[in-house]
């Protein structure tokens, strides 16, 4: 019987520091067979093991067209993610996946795409952006709104010039520390709505970020006339298995790990708000 809990070994081949607390790792499976057969959809995640510390669900941040390797962009916040911070090229971690639902790529072909991301939430959307760049003519207008706390907290900045050749990229930060030059918007990501060119018609929205951000993003877009059945959100819950067994990730009747993390907005809208936000009243 296949054991879904047993990780495959993967070697870290490259480590790139994104911000003071976030790093992008490039991995390569040790087994050539795994390298050849393994694949994923944009939006899916892996469970990453640091042996002796534990496991954490992390989105895949490379594109599905990037073959022979895959990437994860990790914010160091706790046990596993801080242990990863100590890893160097050549070190080995455990990987199992890819798990969960991906972004509805097929639905995006021939349509306009609006991506709204906050903070680390850009990581699971980078595969979509890379896919758009790889097959630009399959998509119509593509706009990316990205918000972070400060300019120094922005991920993938070195790739922005390249991205901008293919998609309309708009940036916002909550605040600019003194002495830092910033030519873009200051304010929460939704303040970019007033300047974006995306229109409700024929547009699919993908959003990932802090839940409170997504709440205001969805609310704002619905108000502007975007269709609720073309909005997709990626949710975050605690996860101990990734395969619908440990129960940790439940949102109402849904398991975030297998029914999500990407949900059609309408699927979640049917649940009481407390189940989503959780904090009671």
């Amino acid at each position, binding site marked *: 019987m296949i054991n879904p809990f*047993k990780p495959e*070994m993967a070697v870290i081949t490259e480590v790139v520091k994104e911000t003071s607390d976030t790093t992008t790792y490039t991995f390569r499976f040790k087994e050539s067979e795994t390298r050849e057969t393994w694949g994923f959809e944009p939006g899916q995640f892996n469970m990453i093991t640091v042996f002796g510390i534990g496991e954490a669900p992390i989105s895949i941040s490379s594109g599905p067209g990037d073959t022979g390797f895959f990437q994860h962009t990790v914010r160091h916040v706790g046990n596993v993610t801080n242990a990863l911070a100590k890893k160097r090229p050549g070190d080995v971690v455990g990987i199992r996946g890819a798990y969960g639902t991906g972004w509805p790529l097929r639905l995006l072909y021939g349509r306009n795409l609006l991506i709204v991301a906050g903070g680390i939430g850009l990581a699971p959307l980078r595969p979509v952006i890379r896919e758009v760049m790889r097959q630009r003519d399959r998509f119509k207008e593509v706009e990316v709104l990205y918000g972070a706390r400060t300019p120094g907290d922005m991920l993938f900045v070195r790739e922005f010039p390249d991205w901008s050749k293919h998609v309309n990229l708009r940036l916002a930060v909550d605040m600019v520390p003194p002495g830092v030059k910033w030519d873009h918007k200051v304010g929460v990501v939704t303040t970019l709505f007033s300047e974006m060119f995306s229109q409700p018609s024929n547009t699919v929205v993908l959003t990932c970020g802090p839940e409170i951000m997504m709440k205001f993003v969805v609310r704002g877009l619905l108000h502007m006339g975007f269709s609720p059945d073309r909005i997709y959100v990626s949710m975050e819950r*605690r996860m101990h*298995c990734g395969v619908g067994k*440990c129960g*940790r990730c*439940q949102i109402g009747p849904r398991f975030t790990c297998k029914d999500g993390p990407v949900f059609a907005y309408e699927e979640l809208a049917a649940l009481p708000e407390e189940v989503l936000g959780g904090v*009671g009243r």
Partner: protein
Amino acid sequence: MAVTKTSSVPDMVVLSGELWQELLKLVTAQYKVIGPVRRGSEHVFAPVKDPRVLDMAYVTTILPPKKVFHQPFQVLFSFDAEEGTLAEAESGEEKVVWGIHPCDMHAIAILDKVYGVEYPDPYYLRNRENTIIVAKNCTEIGEDCFCLSMGTGPALRSGYDLLLTDLGGRYLVEVGTAKGRKLLSGLDVPPAPRVVLVEKEKRLSQARQRFRKRMVTQGIQELLEENFRHPIWEELMRECLACGSCTMVCPTCFCYNVVDKMDLDLKTGRRQREWDSCMLLEYAQVALGQNFRRDRDARIKQRIYHKLLYYEPQFGTLGCVGCGRCIGACVKRIDITDVVSRLAESVESER
């Protein structure tokens, strides 16, 4: 249930006195047996070497027999911190669980769905395959039992290898599978006449009249959906200590936590899973201290809504089998049947 005959052992026998003792002796000599044993004023499922410690008149046990299949602690594999995974946990020997009640069997059928679908769980399934199930119909009804209203007891119709019914000083033993039949193969007994089934049904129907508790299941899903913000949840929050006992004793709860345990050499270790509870604060905590169920009412609701509303879309059945353990285990005696009837009554009186 389809039964394949492996020998001349009949489908149905009645055992009493010496023959019953003989069966217990044979089974405990051949297999590792886990069965109901008295511990102080309560009962537990424990290894049974000497059949005399088996207490077949038990009403309920502290922990459900779920623990044999979904173990409180389960090693997943051992690892070397630098090299990665080493050995997977070994599977255990074949064993017999003796005297499982119908409610607990229904709970196992639910766990079969949780662990058997999509990404089948090899640890649970191995324990299931290795285990012969001797179930026992309930003729004694506990004060917290309400399986009758959940449709999960007091009689079992399927899922057993052998099924026992106490006919008063003698046991009706029905064969469910070839695995069960094997247990009887050392005995030389004639088939029981079909009329004993009349006696069996009489005892079960007497048992049905002895239930003191029931769950109002009619319209329960609608009731819960429409009363997510009912004041009763706040009242319960004030009562509930959020200790997690109700979920720890529940035969259908499946949630677990995973931890890596290092050996003393700090090089090798084991990954292990442990039962977990949605009633505990840390359960829904995510990055940077955000928690989706910080308030206790949200957690009480998670348990009750999960059992009575969300299992249905998840696994096609209600998540409560009416064993009553959560009521008995609660220091404040919060009673899930009472919560539902109070909710129904208050909605009724508003009409």
